[in-house]
């Protein structure tokens, strides 16, 4: 720490300070930002090497890699913030191949004038999320854009991971006869964010479900390596994710509305806002599709894990040349569960 104080006589003012153009210029101010903020919180040996890249040995087996840009507004929401989300979201994308995530990279685009206090809060939260997940941020980048040309902060994270031997998990592998499972209640994240964005006050605060799912996935593939598809229903919600898989696999799906878990407060908020929870984003849930005969074992494995406690079997894969996702409604009728069109809109009448 003594050396650091010598290099930068005045510590970064993370109480009242703000991002300015010098923080992205490549000069001393940028070096200080990296050292006193990013390096300090993300601290790990690979990052400490101070190179433009992180060097590590390739793990044996099939590698997977995924990247995700995070532009959420508001930056802080009940149950998380853009920092924790940027870690969880990308880890989950890698985990949905059945993979064990190894390393993360993080690219920050900061807007001139963004409070350093907020930035620190985000970085601390990101570092915590990455430590909890056991996936370190090993390389990164910072850019600053002029005021008005960003929305505070955008974070892009990339993760690499390795797939254990014997797994073949992909969105095009759903077959008629397979069973569809969800790891818990849907719509929590979208409603948590929306409730802050629209300044809607609810009596009970709904928290985002933002979480890293790789340990749940590890428990699942250990018990049922036959899993065909895994995907986290983020933007566009469960409906959109199932449509993607149906399309990729060229098979239809048949859901049962009655057994799809939705929390009461989330259902009530959706009712009020005119939203359909099937289309509302999740950040800590996954959809799994496996052969019918493994479904009960998989359900039990999911329910044994804290992040899969409320897991449920919600439907099955059927033959359908149109690859439609259909649902038996609460009332006993049936309907198509289509892709999300545009953005979900509030009802006006």
């Amino acid at each position, binding site marked *: 720490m003594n050396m650091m104080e010598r290099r930068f006589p005045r510590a970064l003012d993370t109480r009242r300070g703000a991002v300015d153009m010098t923080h992205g210029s490549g000069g001393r101010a940028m070096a200080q930002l990296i050292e006193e903020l990013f390096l300090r919180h993300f601290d790990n040996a690979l990052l400490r090497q101070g190179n433009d890249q992180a060097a590590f040995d390739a793990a044996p087996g099939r590698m997977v890699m995924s990247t995700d840009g995070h532009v959420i507004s508001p930056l802080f929401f009940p149950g998380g913030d853009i920092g924790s989300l940027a870690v969880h979201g990308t880890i989950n994308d890698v985990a949905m191949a059945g993979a064990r995530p190894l390393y993360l990279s993080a690219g920050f685009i900061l807007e001139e004038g963004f409070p350093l206090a907020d930035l620190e809060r985000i970085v601390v939260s990101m570092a915590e999320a990455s430590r909890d997940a056991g996936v370190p941020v090993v390389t990164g980048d910072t850019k600053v854009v002029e005021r008005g040309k960003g929305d505070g902060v955008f974070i892009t994270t990339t993760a690499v991971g390795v797939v254990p031997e014997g797994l073949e998990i992909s969105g095009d592998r759903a077959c008629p006869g397979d069973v569809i499972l969800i790891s818990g209640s849907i719509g929590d994240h979208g409603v948590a964010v929306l409730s802050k964005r629209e300044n809607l006050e609810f009596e009970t605060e709904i928290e985002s479900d933002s979480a890293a799912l790789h340990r749940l996935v590890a428990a699942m593939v250990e018990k049922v390596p036959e899993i065909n598809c895994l995907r986290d229903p983020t933007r566009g919600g469960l409906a959109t994710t199932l449509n993607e898989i149906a399309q990729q696999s060229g098979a239809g799906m048949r859901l049962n509305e009655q057994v799809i878990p939705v929390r009461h407060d989330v*259902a009530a908020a959706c009712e009020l806002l005119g939203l359909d929870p099937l289309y509302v984003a999740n950040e800590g849930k996954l959809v799994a599709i496996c052969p019918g005969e493994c479904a009960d074992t998989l359900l039990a494995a999911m329910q044994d894990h804290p992040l899969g406690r409320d897991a449920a079997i919600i439907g099955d894969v059927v033959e359908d040349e*149109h690859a439609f996702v259909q649902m038996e409604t609460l*009332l*006993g009728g*049936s309907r198509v569960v289509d892709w999300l*069109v*545009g953005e979900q809109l509030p*009802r*006006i*009448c």
Partner: protein
Amino acid sequence: MKYIDEYRRQDLAKGLAGRIRREAQETRRYHIMEFCGGHTHAIFRYGVQDLMPENVKFVHGPGCPVCVLPIGRIDGAMELAHKHDAILCTYGDMMRVPASKRKSLLKAKAEGADIRMVYSTQDALKIARDNQEREVVFFAIGFETTTPPTAVAIKQAQAEGLENFSVYCNHVLTPAAITHVLESPEVRELGTVAIDAFLGPSHVSSVIGSQPYEFFAEEFQRPVVIAGFEPLDVMQATLMAIRQLNEGRHEVENEYHRVVTRKGNTKAQALVAEVFELRRSFEWRGLGEVPYSALKLKEPFAAFDAERKFTLENRSVRDVKSCECPAILRGAKKPTDCKLFGKACTPDNPMGSCMVSSEGACAAYWTYRRFVEPATANAREEAVA
């Protein structure tokens, strides 16, 4: 969810469906027009039609405020944002409705027009307070349900002296539209549209009451049953309409008595009467000019009337030629009768207004039922030709 789940229970739905099947006489026809887009949405969302016998059919009415707004009025809104540089505040549903030249408010926003989506008139007022140097126009649309909040906003703006706030008023009236549908030649003379009974609106009726429907139940000899928006409400009201038809009655009945009274919300009515007056005539998409079917601001509130504050080109723009929205809004055609349906026109790329709002018949067909009811042979042939 209390007070909601009760109205979606499968066991009750099955019981009601059984009763409807027993009481609907095989030799009779029961074509029931649900006026309101909210009912259309519920019918499709919950698959209510699946639970009905063959001879009980829902005919989808024009009660979707987004769908009935003519292109010229949307062009007017764009003009306010573009030419007059106003901040245009709109309910979300309007954003994707196609205007002239395949433009929309969403596209105008992308081109730099300052268009903001609001949830309530109060949001629009706040934007006006926060931007006193700019003109802020609220794009007011909707039936009797959304009119009182607009009236409140206008009175509030007047009380606060908020001179930069105005309302582009497109509020329309339900009874006038129902009368127009019933008086159309398709229903009266040609008999091409069969409407045996009506499901009356729920939210609209909570404001205007059940009384206004008494006239046309009598005049046109059609039962009207006011129904809530939950699927069991729709089914119960359908059963009530079937019973009326079986017994040769044509009365206004109220299934939604947990909310709707005969007189309605008199406080809201008084507020609307204070701020608004009838337009002599107003153009509806699909219905054309309908006399005394819409509202405008009264003289004392002229300063808050965007149509008087800004000079707007008044224009009537024709719909896309092959778009069947007009006939669909009158119940004369089904969405699948349109040759654009599902081809040139989908919710992602709507040509007509019925494909935009989730309450529009075309969007509901496309989203929830296209696997059940493929395009009719007629439309298929036309598409090939």
